[in-house]
């Protein structure tokens, strides 16, 4: 295992640890793990935060050390790369436990809706970011097409941790990475569309200010997703071309893969750091003005302490989340299950189809 590969693995472990640390630490007097408690943090809450911060730091340090000291035997390195799953699961467990302990308030039933059209999905997206993403996708595909024309029919496609090729195949299978980028892009457009479909329900007393806040919330959410997806796509492009260049020369892709991991780590962390805080601020004001973060939804639809929305009598397919940011599906509608299914199997299915059709 090369030094570059070890470094890349440590960078990805560290980036997950950073995100968890950032979520776990106490940064707001009334919010823990980005969940609004509706009260001041107690000593028990602070202890919960400290515990997770320590577990996270300890596990990621141990895992990083393991990557450097372990012989490149598969099992130890595998254990180190899977180690971040422990603090991640711990964090999710803490979040669910916290939400379950919070009271679920009634959603105010009185709201105003305009009779005219709502702002469209295109009013939330950023034109320069959309163009940049499309240029990236087309340029990467074009570069790969050129590389493909200079490659043999069979190339090494998979390497063990010592750098020996252990699977060979047609390089056209690498188109699968492009299909994942297309899927990512569709997902990004889906989020913008989904935000624009949310009910435009306004509290009658503060309609104008609230409408401005909702527009800001939706635009911030779409911008966050745009940066996440473009960063992910950039990472995939680097990986895709690095693999193509390396297999053309029948060697293991090293530096390119490490760079791709680094970009992926940045793509995950930076947009969260930039956009989460303003999103939270906007949501706090939304909650204060309307008495709820989910004005326009049916109180009876919120199940499992407000974690799940199941309202067959509500035509809405997407509603704002009751806890945290973004949206959740109305599982009382069959279309919600279809969307969930499509999102879960979409990327693997597209990738598989691409390999079958082109490979």
């Amino acid at each position: 295992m090369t030094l570059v590969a070890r470094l890349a693995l440590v960078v990805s472990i560290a980036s997950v640890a950073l995100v968890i640390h950032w979520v776990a630490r106490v940064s707001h007097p009334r919010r823990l793990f980005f969940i609004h408690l509706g009260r001041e943090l107690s000593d028990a809450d602070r202890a919960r935060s400290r515990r997770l911060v320590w577990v996270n730091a300890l596990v990621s340090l141990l895992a990083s050390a393991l990557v450097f000291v372990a012989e490149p035997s598969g099992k130890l390195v595998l254990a180190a790369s899977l180690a971040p799953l422990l603090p991640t699961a711990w964090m999710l467990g803490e979040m669910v436990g916290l939400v379950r302990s919070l009271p679920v308030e009634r959603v105010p039933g009185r709201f105003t809706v305009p009779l005219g059209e709502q702002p469209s999905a295109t009013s939330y997206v950023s034109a320069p970011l959309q163009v940049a993403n499309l240029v990236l996708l087309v340029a990467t595909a074009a570069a790969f097409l050129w590389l493909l024309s200079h490659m043999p029919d069979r190339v090494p496609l998979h390497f063990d941790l010592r750098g020996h090729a252990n699977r060979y195949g047609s390089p056209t299978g690498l188109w699968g990475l492009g299909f994942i980028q297309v899927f990512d892009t569709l997902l990004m457009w889906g989020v913008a569309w989904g935000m624009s479909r949310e009910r435009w329900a306004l509290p009658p007393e503060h309609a104008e200010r609230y409408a401005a806040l909702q527009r800001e919330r939706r635009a911030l959410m779409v911008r966050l997703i745009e940066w996440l997806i473009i960063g992910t796509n950039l990472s995939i492009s680097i990986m895709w071309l690095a693999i193509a260049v390396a297999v053309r020369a029948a060697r293991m892709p090293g530096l390119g893969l490490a760079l791709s991991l680094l970009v992926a780590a940045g793509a995950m962390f930076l947009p969260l750091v930039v956009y989460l805080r303003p999103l939270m601020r906007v949501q706090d004001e939304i909650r204060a003005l309307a008495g709820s973060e989910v004005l326009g939804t049916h109180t009876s639809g919120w199940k499992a302490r407000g974690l799940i929305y199941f309202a067959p009598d509500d035509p809405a397919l997407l509603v704002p989340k009751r806890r945290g940011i973004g949206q959740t599906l109305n599982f009382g509608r069959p279309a919600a299950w279809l969307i969930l299914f499509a999102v879960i199997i979409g990327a693997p299915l597209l990738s598989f189809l691409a390999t079958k059709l082109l490979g």
Partner: protein
Amino acid sequence: MATETNPSITVDFDSAVPVYRQIADEIRGLVARGELEDGAGLPSVRQLGSQVGVNLNTVARAYRTLADEGLVELRQGASARVRIPDAPYRSAMAPDDERRLDDLISRWVLAGADRKRIEELIRGALDRFFAARAAGGADGGGA
């Protein structure tokens, strides 16, 4: 583009008044205040149902109520339209109007309001209504 400056309606799921009636009352109010003019298109029942969060039958019932009053024109395969009748508005003197006013006064009195307070409430409502009507571009009229 949308927006809060467009004609809008307010519903209250916590109210005892059925939602279809709230929708009909709100649209009638918009027409009376001049915020919806003669010939203005209304959202489709599906669209308004989705915006309010109710079944499309609820919106259809609200539109039918307004159509029965002669205030809305329902057209097959097209969106409903506001229709301000030339003849005196059919439900201007609906038989239960006096009863509804009496009921309103009874509830205010039971809530502790005296005659002066009730006069204030009615005057305030009239002021709000005609101010909105003047802002909506319609003839302000006089109270």
